């Protein structure tokens, strides 16, 4: 009874006060309550993790693209424009919710809701480290593809329901492109599943931990499945309809494609889903082919031991923690007030706070004698750092492609997808079969 979920007494009391809902809660029984609570927790944590990325990825994209085009990118709201996207979202949220008069009201709302829901559902089985995984299901990879497989019909419905020729053509193109690149994407992913012998994402990452037998490299699937890696990366970016492949929303031809008639909050949702899709696809590349949270070389340990701090290192560690804590608080205040366009960035104040934190906590470190940092925590932090560094390298690659490459034509792109990518993906699967047979 005591191991159901955290704060169970509190939640039981809460439901007790709700009358009929409380009865339903009791009727669910222990397993049902656990199921519901873990579902809620899963949605909350996954949503938080992905939503934070949704604020970072577009900022990185705009900054990098700005640099590539000799601009400065967003620089006004927050420190170095970090909160620009939050401001944009807020602006879109308070705008008037316009539904075109001739639009199909049901389809117009249904499509947006469906796209958002299916993209959010796809976050559930994503592991960020060996431990931080919301739903460790046995068919996690296939589940993500199933959630994204709902996109083509929904995009088409969004285009049709807008009752505008640009939207409809955009819907047709979007649908055709998504279907054409879903197959190479899946076949390339199946090759990794074949080598790992499991469709569970954690298992796939753990299976890449062995030695390659060459230059102390780990056996990431990028080495045997180089073709699959590039196929997955390109198809993954193609699925998100970003600039080299943004045929469905080609501005010069179709205004904004499917997005033309969407305004306010609906537009913000479509925008978020696009970045969510990009981030999840790139994270999948990291998990399937680039070893997820595993380090690059075999001589770098995958798990860290307990770290005992004592004597002089104790003082310095505490000092750095204090400096980070104080300086971070000041930076957070800067970010917060920068959002309201009060330019209070004062380097002097930041320095004073940091140094005082350094001195204060350093003094505290002299008093504390012996201190152990658990190895599990360090491992967790190292794994998170690795996976996000890898993912943001790929994000940089995608942004680079967006800034540097011109748009392809729809007929060229579809024929590449069906007649080049799909055979290549099957060839890659054959390689995977041979490699799996050899080991």
């Amino acid at each position, binding site marked *: 009874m005591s191991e159901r979920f955290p704060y169970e007494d509190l939640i039981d009391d809460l439901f007790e006060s709700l009358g009929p809902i409380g009865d339903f809660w009791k*009727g*669910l029984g222990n397993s049902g309550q656990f199921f519901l609570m873990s579902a809620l927790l899963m949605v909350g944590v996954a949503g938080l993790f992905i939503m934070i990325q949704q604020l970072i990825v577009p900022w990185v994209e705009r900054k990098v693209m700005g640099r590539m085009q000799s601009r400065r990118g967003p620089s006004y709201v927050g420190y170095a424009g970090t909160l620009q996207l939050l401001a944009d979202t807020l602006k879109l949220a308070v705008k008037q919710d316009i539904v075109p008069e001739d639009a199909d009201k049901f*389809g117009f709302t249904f499509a947006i809701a469906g796209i958002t829901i299916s993209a959010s559902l796809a976050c559930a089985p994503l592991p960020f480290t060996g431990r931080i995984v919301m739903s460790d299901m*046995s068919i996690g990879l*296939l589940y993500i593809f*199933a959630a994204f*497989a*709902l996109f083509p*019909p929904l995009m088409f419905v969004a285009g049709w329901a807008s009752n505008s020729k640009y939207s409809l053509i955009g819907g047709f193109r979007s649908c055709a492109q998504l*279907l054409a690149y879903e197959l190479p994407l899946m076949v390339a992913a199946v090759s990794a599943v074949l080598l790992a012998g499991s469709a569970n994402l954690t298992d796939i990452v753990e299976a890449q931990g062995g030695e390659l037998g060459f230059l102390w490299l780990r056996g990431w699937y990028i080495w045997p499945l180089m073709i699959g890696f590039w196929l997955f990366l390109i198809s993954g970016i193609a699925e998100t309809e970003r600039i080299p492949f943004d045929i469905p929303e080609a501005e010069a031809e179709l205004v904004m494609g499917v997005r033309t008639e969407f305004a306010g909050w609906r537009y913000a949702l479509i925008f978020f889903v696009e970045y969510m899709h990009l981030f999840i696809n790139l994270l999948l590349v990291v998990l399937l082919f680039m070893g997820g949270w595993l380090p690059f070389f075999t001589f770098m340990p995958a798990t860290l031991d307990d770290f005992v701090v004592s004597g002089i290192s104790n003082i310095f560690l505490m000092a750095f923690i204090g400096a980070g804590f104080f300086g971070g608080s000041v930076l957070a205040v800067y970010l917060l007030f920068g959002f309201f366009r009060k330019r209070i960035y004062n380097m002097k104040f930041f320095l004073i706070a940091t140094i005082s934190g350094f001195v204060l906590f350093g003094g505290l470190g002299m008093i504390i004698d012996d201190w152990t940092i658990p190895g599990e925590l360090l491992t967790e932090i190292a794994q998170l750092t690795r996976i996000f560094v890898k993912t943001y390298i790929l994000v940089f690659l995608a942004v680079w492609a967006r800034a540097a490459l011109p748009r392809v034509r729809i007929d060229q792109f579809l024929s590449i997808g069906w007649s080049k990518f799909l055979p290549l993906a099957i060839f890659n699967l054959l390689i995977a079969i041979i490699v799996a047979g050899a080991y």
Partner: protein
Amino acid sequence: MTLDYSLFFFLLFGCLAIIFALGTIIAKKLMHAVLALFLFLISIALLFLLLNNEYLFVIQLTLYCGGISVLFLFATVLTTNQHETADKTNSYWSGFIAFVFVLALSLVVYSIDWASDWANYSLEKYGDPSLFREFSEQLFRNYPYTVAFLGLLLLATLIGSSKLALKEEAEAA
């Protein structure tokens, strides 16, 4: 029979499936019928999930909701004209036939003593990671020729349907 969560969700999605299936018949616009079909297919996928088959759940979502409903959407937009209506023919007699059929099937279901014949069932494999692997192994061990035949059939369908759809355009050009 207690109302635990799996039964609750089964009843919920079962009722939703029936409502959406009715929606495909009632809907005035053909597009709305296709949207109802889309939702119907999703509820069926959820029923599969509640019946312990995660694998079929995924296949249903990918193949049916992602693939076949796109076909229907395209066909709807490409073949609809102003004359398209939700008119029905022979609805009285057909309704009677369907009702009698459902009644007969329900009587059959009702008359069988499920408790004694199917008493030894258990659904304890829920979420078992080995299920997926075991199912795939059984699939290729017991039905290898059928799987190969299905692959050939789907390839023939791909070629045949694209030829069929493109034939008239080639003649016109």
